[in-house]
């Protein structure tokens, strides 16, 4: 498991309060109960904090699955 996925898993677990989350690249908001439009921005802030990066509004708008998130983190990181 890559370092990014490991750190991202921790961010997901702490943001959504669900210690059972196991990430896959295909995973979308529909797969995580607490991941809705309101908590999406919380997730973004938490990821920015963890990886020390800043997403653009376009990045955020284009995200549709965990794989997209990882791609942005790797590009911005």
């Amino acid at each position, binding site marked *: 498991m890559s370092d990014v996925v490991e750190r991202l898993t*921790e961010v997901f677990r*702490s943001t959504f309060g669900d210690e059972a989350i196991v990430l896959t690249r295909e995973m979308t908001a529909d797969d995580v109960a607490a991941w809705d439009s*309101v908590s999406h921005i919380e997730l973004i*802030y938490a990821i920015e904090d963890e990886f020390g990066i800043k997403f653009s509004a376009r990045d955020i708008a284009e995200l549709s699955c965990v794989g997209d998130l990882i791609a942005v983190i790797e590009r911005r990181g």
Partner: protein
Amino acid sequence: MVAPRPALAALKETGNRFLAARRFDEAASVYEEAALLSEIPRGGLCVRLARAHLEAGRPEEAAAWLMPVVDTAPSFRTWASAARILDRCPPETWPRVRRRLRVALVGTWTTSAFGAMLRLAAARLGLALEIYEPDFGQYFNATLDPGSALHAWEPEAVVLAPDQRALGLKPFSDAPEADAEAAVARWSAVWQALRARSAPIIIQHGFATSGGDPLGHYAAGLAGARRTIVARVNRLLAERATTEDVGFLNVQALAGRLGAEAWFDDRGWYMAKMPYGPDALPLLARHTAAVLAARIGFSRRCLVLDLDNTLWGGVIGDDGVEGITLGGNAIGEAYADFQLALKELRGRGILLAACSKNDEAVARAAFREHPEMVLREEDFAAFVVNWQPKSDNLRSVAARLDLGLDSLAFFDDNPYERAEVRRALPEVDVPILPEDPTGYRRAIEQYPYFEPSAFTASDRARAEQYRARAEALTLRASAGSLADYQASLDMRASFGRVDPLNMSRVVQLINKTNQFNLTTRRRNAAELERLLGRPGAHGIWARLRDRFADHGLIAVAIGIERDDPAGRVLEIDTLLMSCRVLGRGVEDAVVGELARIALAAGCSRIEGVHVPTGRNGMVAELYARLGLAEIERAPDGTVRWAGPAEPLTRPEVPIEINWTEA
């Protein structure tokens, strides 16, 4: 030989590995060990401790570890995560809950993350909040309409959180006084509406300003400049709040403390309608909770002070009156300044008490003899100086002053003494002082839990003058009822046919609107173009603008003509609207316009259908309200409605309608 204590970083690392592997008991015990290495662990460690304890089935331990997060750095991530864990711990498991309170949180922005943090910050003060939030964009409807769900919920307290955008000010006003007064009347009308129903505690957020001015620095000297008016609105609203016993939160001051660059976050606004930056929300929550707690008498009333190395540098018993550091040099000035701040606090009614391990005569001599001493013996309501444990002496301070322990705050430079008091007397508030005495003054000035809620006799006289002025304002504005309020909004709806220019916004609404959506038929752009290309298909949109804001394109409707034995019918295939303009009569206008289109096309009747999805219950009775009759009810709950095509005739909807021809 004693083994060296493992370093904090190594322990955290081990704990993190256990947590990731979901070995919660082991994670908790390693984190506990890490927590012992500092007086109060950093927020991140507190949150991990709470997570591990909660998953290991110990919600009491979890909740207890969440409380110190409120006193740590205001980091969004830490707070948001702590708030979420707290939500999973029942209030019965929280430490020292003194009162439960039903709070309605009403904002002009997305307040859910803030609401969770407010709950956390209030829990730290012994308040277990149950929070109700009206739907987005319902600030005035929820509060002014006596029949609203908010009123039915019967809140004991209401937190009103508008943001500057909702002021809707022009960049420059030719009538600044009138504009400011109108704004004050509009926002304070909400208090009167709330009080007319019940008598809740009301907390009003003031306005913080961001953004520049077309006139640059020059604008500062102009009464009509936007920022000048916002400052005026804040002042008038705060004065009026004091008169009307409403708690006012000086958001502008908090924004200044964090810095406007961090306080405001335009990206958050555009993406999620959160105007404040991530790290602003914890600060806002902490202070909102403090003002709320003050309203129910939970503020601290007495500050108990250590002496040596707290009020002056050095130890009076060893160094003597001449040897202590107070005034005279850089650090001495910091101590003297701290004493000045304490004196100001005493001046506004906070009791001071001394609690020190010293010989009493020696300690008293310092106050009598040191030329730079700001505080005097008579400034202390209690002077408890002996060699007993501090916790015993705090008890005797409380007894002497006839105060509960939960009215005391204790300032001491010594971490050992702080820990002793925290352990023995958890009711006493024991903040951590900065190590550097030059930070003491700011620490006491920013300490939020001395917040007053009552006013003194002289305040009261002044308040009477404010009250008279405030009443005059109300008469002029008369924005008390919802109907008056809506009439004053000067709402203008513009309608148009769906065309390539607005296609993407229309498709977006069709695919994301869940609640105010009669049929929830999702379509992409190609499907929509195909549908609307058919003869007898009508796709329309509506935009709404009012005095304060342009809400943009907020509603979409599609009508399809068809032949029926009883004559030609226009069937409403799609009707949806953004919830941010709920309760303003826009839906009435949209159906009215569809009816006009139907008549023009030779249809005498319109039909509509409600397809229940589990999320669109709010519109189940819409057609009934608009005067259509139920004609068919399917087993899955889908209901078909029909009635004569009649243009909108209800005059009570004060909305002006214009058509834009493409």
